């Protein structure tokens, strides 16, 4: 079938959205932006297409719910099957990447050992890799799927393992980390092909084992599912946007500014959107749109990256937390410490100074989130204010403390304004891009 792709190459993450002919979202994909833009795009697009195939599988499943009573797959079983399929798929991908990592680390070993005379890392590294491998099934087949990218997931496990394994002189911590840092870049630059089809059998098998699918139906279910995920997807058009769009391997007319894409994306998700606030990794945008989703005005932060998503990243690093953990922690604050500087680079220093003054971590975090949103409020004011409805997009919209601070400050400044936040807000730009792609093709067909 024909589909349309929007790709948002952000400073932090690269997002892709796939639409079907009717403009419904088929799939979404995300990866961390990296120096090889082509790979980042390819990975995000491949993920989105895989996700699209999952959607197709979901669409195909109800058919399995029809037939003789002892043959039907109950809706619960269908759900379980889909979930399992996704889990199996993510696990398989993870294992492939661990293999790549193992190979790369091993290849880098001599170079690293040369830097640390006397170091012998081989056995420790083998052990570290083994540990990662052993942990994988529980990580993916248990409950929630991990929400972080391979890089981050592996990095934190690796750091933990390295800390335990380190012995000064013989196996310095720095050397163990260094080997990982080198290898991970290579791993990220590698494209690997792993279709969903490869794990259909495993997923079905798991459910048979769990007694959710009658053993006799296994073959039938497997065939139906494999057929659905193997359906050919033809990308009819793609539009690129985002910070790195100028370097996307797209012709110029297939590139749209982030402003237009975020405006349109927000309009598509929430048609009554009048104002869009987008906080990404290193910029913040305030956009005004008309009832058709056409941008009427916008403002972006100036050259200083203070108060953007990266700021939270630095803070999280400093606290040894994941970015997604910051918001919940901040929400548990009892009071807010007033923070004035949102300079990203000094965030850590300020944090330490405040902690040393005896202030609580949660309270400082609450203050930091408010400070970020205060800056965003200025930008909103600059762009013409907050009008109903306000849609909050970009990665930072995933942060509940940022959302809470925004709600409060909007109420203080503008009264009760309906506010939209979608769990998929990080894909807003890519969604807008995909719609531009679709419109371009439809307009071309009409002409």
């Amino acid at each position, binding site marked *: 079938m024909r589909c349309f792709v929007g790709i948002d190459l952000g400073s932090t993450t690269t997002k892709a959205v796939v639409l079907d002919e009717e403009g419904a979202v088929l799939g979404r994909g995300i990866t961390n932006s990296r120096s090889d833009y082509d790979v980042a795009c390819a990975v995000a697009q491949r993920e989105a297409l895989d996700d699209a195939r999952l959607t197709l599988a979901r669409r195909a499943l109800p058919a399995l719910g029809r037939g003789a009573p002892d043959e039907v797959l109950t809706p619960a079983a269908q759900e379980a099957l889909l979930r399992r399929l996704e889990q199996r798929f993510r696990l398989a991908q993870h294992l492939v990447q661990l293999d790549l990592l193992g190979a790369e680390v091993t290849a880098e070993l001599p170079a690293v050992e040369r830097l640390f005379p006397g170091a012998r890392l081989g056995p420790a590294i083998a052990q570290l890799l083994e540990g990662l491998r052993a942990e994988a099934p529980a990580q993916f087949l248990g409950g929630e799927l991990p929400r972080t990218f391979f890089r981050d997931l592996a990095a934190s496990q690796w750091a933990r393992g390295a800390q335990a394994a380190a012995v000064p002189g013989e196996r310095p911590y720095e050397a163990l980390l260094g080997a990982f840092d080198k290898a991970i870049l290579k791993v990220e630059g590698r494209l690997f092909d792993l279709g969903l089809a490869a794990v259909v059998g495993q997923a079905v098998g798991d459910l048979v084992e769990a007694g959710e699918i009658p053993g006799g139906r296994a073959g039938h279910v497997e065939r139906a599912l494999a057929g659905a995920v193997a359906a050919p997807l033809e990308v009819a058009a793609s539009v690129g946007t985002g910070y790195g769009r100028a370097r996307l391997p797209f012709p110029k007319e297939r590139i749209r*500014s982030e402003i237009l894409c975020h405006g349109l994306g927000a309009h598509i998700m929430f048609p009554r959107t009048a104002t869009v606030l987008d906080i990404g990794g290193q910029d913040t945008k305030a956009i005004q749109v008309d009832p058709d989703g056409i941008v009427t005005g*916008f403002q972006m932060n100036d050259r200083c990256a203070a108060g953007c998503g990266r700021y939270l990243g630095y803070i999280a690093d400093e606290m040894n937390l994941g970015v997604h953990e910051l918001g919940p922690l901040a929400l548990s604050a009892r009071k807010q410490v007033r923070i004035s500087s949102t300079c990203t680079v000094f965030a850590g220093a300020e944090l330490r100074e405040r902690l040393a003054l005896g202030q609580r971590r949660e309270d400082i975090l609450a203050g930091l989130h408010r400070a970020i949103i205060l800056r965003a409020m200025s930008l909103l004011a600059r762009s013409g204010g907050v009008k109903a409805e306000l849609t909050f997009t970009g990665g930072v919209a995933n942060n509940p403390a940022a959302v809470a601070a925004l709600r409060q400050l909007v109420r203080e400044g503008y009264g009760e304004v309906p506010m939209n936040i979608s769990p998929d807000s990080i894909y807003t730009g890519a969604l807008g891009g995909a719609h531009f792609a679709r419109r371009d093709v439809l307009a071309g067909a009409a002409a």
Partner: protein
Amino acid sequence: MTATPLPAAPAPQKDRSQERQKAMLAEHFARLAAAPETGAKVVYTFVPGNLTELLLSFDILPVLPEINALQSGMRQRSREFIREAEKRGHSEDVCTYVKCDLGMKLKGNVGPTGDRLPNPDLLLLSYTGCFTFMKWFELLREEYRAPTCMLHVPYQADGKVTPSARDYVVRQLREEVIPALERITGRAYDEDRLREHLRRSAEAEEDLVRVLRSARRRPSPIDGYFGAVYYVGPIFSSFRGTADAAAYYRELREEVDERVRLGLGPVTPDGPMGPERFRLVVEGPPNWTSFREFWRMFHAEGAVCVASTYTKVGGTYDEGFRHDPDRPLETLAEYCLGCYTNRSLPTRVDVLCRYMDEYEADGLLVNSVKSCNSFSAGQLLMLREVERRTGKPGGFIESDLVDPRYFSAANVKNRIDAYLQMIEQRRRGAGA
């Protein structure tokens, strides 16, 4: 803030006028280089509120430190000059024009033509539209140990030239400036000569205005920002009131008239511009260190700047002001008081709205430069006001005049593209 590049750099138009301007400048710098031998007197002064006719009437050669700074920016020397000034304890925060000029002095005071510039016999501090000028000459005074003559030009806070302000300036001209010029030249003030220069100024001003106004046509035959910074060159600097300048503007006017007749658009350093797609009014000075690259971000997209405020810092002739030979000192005072950045913010908003209207622009773009508080403080409000009054969208970019550290091409281009795409989308409606 101010003034204009040597056309020796990227030439927008290989026209006769262009050649003439180049020759005028070369001659001027040659005279400056020879000053130590010829004994010609040299006065350093600023562009906004310059008293060129008066200086000419004393046969004094003006040097404009702002132009030094600008040229250093275009010649890619500013980074090193600014570094030199910062090395001497200047803050990263302050106006880079000052630092760039100071750095050039510290590095031997070699001007754009490669000749050493002569030291000043007098620092004529005509302090118009910006407080930094005062500090600038205090700093130069320490370097050159030259006498300083202050001409304090009050601000047009209420949007008009008050009689008290004019009298104050005239009296200063008469009692401070003229005596200082007499002192250094040993000559008496010759009002008839001054009148003669003023008459020529008015002539050139008439032609310049006609050139600038040609941008009201579609397509506009000129770029009223990037191109016009070359056009205002002679009149903003050492040539206002000379026969050369009058001839230059006559020639320029004829050339532009010809373009109009032929229905041509502007010429850019990369050749004639393609079809005109966007008409913009621009507020704020340009960036000099990446001038061509900056211009290209506009013309490559078919955006022409039809009017700009920067080209009015050395006089707001298009608002009707002409030097009047019959009231020589009064006219100089009114000229100083009327320069663009000496006008209150509400007046500046009025000017911009008028431009939007008269030049049928699609939008207002502000290039906010870090150096210049005089221009920049309040621009965001001006933008909002113009948007509100005209209903046209505003765009906002940030850079600097001559500090390459503050020009991020990717950043600026990103915003300009988004802005132009927005105008396009609005024009086309939802289907874009």
